[in-house]
């Protein structure tokens, strides 16, 4: 079948750098992969049991488009309790099919043809394609290791034009592990307000913040009305496969996004929604245990990479490190391909995460310490040849 029928906008979306590398890895045998962007924990049993029970009780129907009110109340409680955010569960919170749908909804409700959306890079691979699908224009805002991979006011100002409509704020960040502290957010707040930008704050890793609590830009004065907060259950509660996310925003945004959501998705799966309620009210200890485990691995892996001889930014969130491989003179792709072929270790090339990612690799530490240590032995022997 000819692809002449495919729309131009879809044809023009480049294939994901991760996809390309995934194909390479899938064809390799006996590898240790440090390339996974999801928790290595299984969803806490309480949550799984709740889903089993509600299925047992015959909960197999649609829910309201916005999601079960009990879940929205739970999310409202969670946001208040954890980040000091105030959202009315009746009309300022909606439940989505993962944070991925939330990204799509937020962009589609805001963007007109040709509107520009600022995307800090390196960052998650989906932002740009989703912007292009809305016929908007992604504008990259490079972030630099020397600035802790966060957006500085100067970086932000330099990319704003009369067409700029929104800024994506992806912190804690995949792939760098960078976070934006309260003072960092305050430093860019004035520019955001001055240029009347809307912030799409992707906070999916908010619970995986080390050395301090996550701060949402929506908690700053005058920012709630211009921020769409995206979050979900995947990372904090190890619930990636459940596809359960949520959006918190002013009523007018929620109403607009719900218009799209009701025609394209209807609602998130009911059993996942019930499980989500259980997760919020009964899994604080699990969250804490997982965070602590990630933190231990984070310290070990950063230190080990530095000892091996790589410059390695210290991440303060998520579960990735983003070491520089510039010393080797290899591109990210070359480095990863050789590491895979020579030592059977899979990590993700930094350039898959946008401009500025070349010269770095993303290494996930969502693995047991034993597995990380085995992988580090091989990485060290590879480093001896390339450093």
């Amino acid at each position, binding site marked *: 079948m000819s692809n002449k029928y495919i729309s131009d906008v879809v044809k023009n979306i480049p294939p*994901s750098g991760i996809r390309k590398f995934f194909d390479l*890895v899938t064809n390799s045998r006996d590898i240790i*992969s440090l390339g*996974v962007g999801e928790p290595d924990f299984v969803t806490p049993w309480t949550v799984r049991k709740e889903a089993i029970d509600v299925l047992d009780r015959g909960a197999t129907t649609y829910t309201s488009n916005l999601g079960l009110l009990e879940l929205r109340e739970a999310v409202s409680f969670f946001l208040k309790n954890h980040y000091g955010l105030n959202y009315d569960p009746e009309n300022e919170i909606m439940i989505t099919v993962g944070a991925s749908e939330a990204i799509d909804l937020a962009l589609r409700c805001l963007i007109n043809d040709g509107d520009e959306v600022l995307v800090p890079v390196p960052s998650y691979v989906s932002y740009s394609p989703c912007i292009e699908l809305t016929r908007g224009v992604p504008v990259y805002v490079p972030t630099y290791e020397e600035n802790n991979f966060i957006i500085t006011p100067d970086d932000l100002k330099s990319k704003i034009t009369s067409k700029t409509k929104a800024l994506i704020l992806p912190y804690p960040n995949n792939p760098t592990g960078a976070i934006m502290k309260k003072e960092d957010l305050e430093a860019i707040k004035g520019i955001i307000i001055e240029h009347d930008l809307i912030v799409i704050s992707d906070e999916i890793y908010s619970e995986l913040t080390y050395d301090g609590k996550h701060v949402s830009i929506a908690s700053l004065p005058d920012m709630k009305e211009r921020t769409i907060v995206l979050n979900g259950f995947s990372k904090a509660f190890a619930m990636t496969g459940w596809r359960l996310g949520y959006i918190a925003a002013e009523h007018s945004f929620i109403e607009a996004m719900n218009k799209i959501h009701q025609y394209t998705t209807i609602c998130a799966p009911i059993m996942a929604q019930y499980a989500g309620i259980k997760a919020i009210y009964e899994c604080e200890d699990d969250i804490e245990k997982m965070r602590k485990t990630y933190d*231990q691995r984070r*310290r*070990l892996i950063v230190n080990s990479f530095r000892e091996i001889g790589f410059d390695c930014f210290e991440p303060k969130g998520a579960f990735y490190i983003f070491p520089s491989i510039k010393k080797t003179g290899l591109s990210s792709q070359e480095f990863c391909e050789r590491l895979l072929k020579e030592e059977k270790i899979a990590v*993700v090339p930094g350039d898959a995460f946008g401009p500025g990612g070349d010269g770095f690799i993303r290494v996930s530490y969502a693995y047991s*310490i034993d597995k990380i240590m085995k992988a580090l032995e091989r990485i060290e022997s590879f480093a001896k040849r390339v450093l």
Partner: protein
Amino acid sequence: MSKKMDIVELLHENSRLTDKQISVITGLSEDEVKDIVKSLEEEKVILKYSTLVNWEKTEKEVVRALIDVRVTPQQGQGFNAIAERIGQYDEVKSVSLISGGYDLSVEVEGKTMKEIAIFVAERLAPIDGVLSTTTHFILKRYKQDGVFFTDGPEDKRLVVTP
């Protein structure tokens, strides 16, 4: 949880971790780690650093059995004296007082089933205070100390995801 407990858990999981690695993981100085480990050893919280071995994959012939032992507790000693006496045999790898239909659960190791049977018949059963023994040979181990002897549940995640 205290840093002390963190160290116990880390070493329980992997006793080959060095003081330096533990210091990196916990954020304590190496000297602090050394001191804590030393005090854990002195307090007999840490009793031994050992290796979990799957003997089936070696040439060594090993048979293990779990023996349910019913005993008469002794005046003023309860079960302790008899449990310690049973524990003195090299063949005995563990002795635990348990609730339920019998009193002590004894794990015994030998080269063959016959060797274990002889040990039970000639040395364990005749001990004063032992009322009865029931021997269960371990045919296959699936999991011990949190570690799967089989391949265990595989990592179901895709090898690379965004």
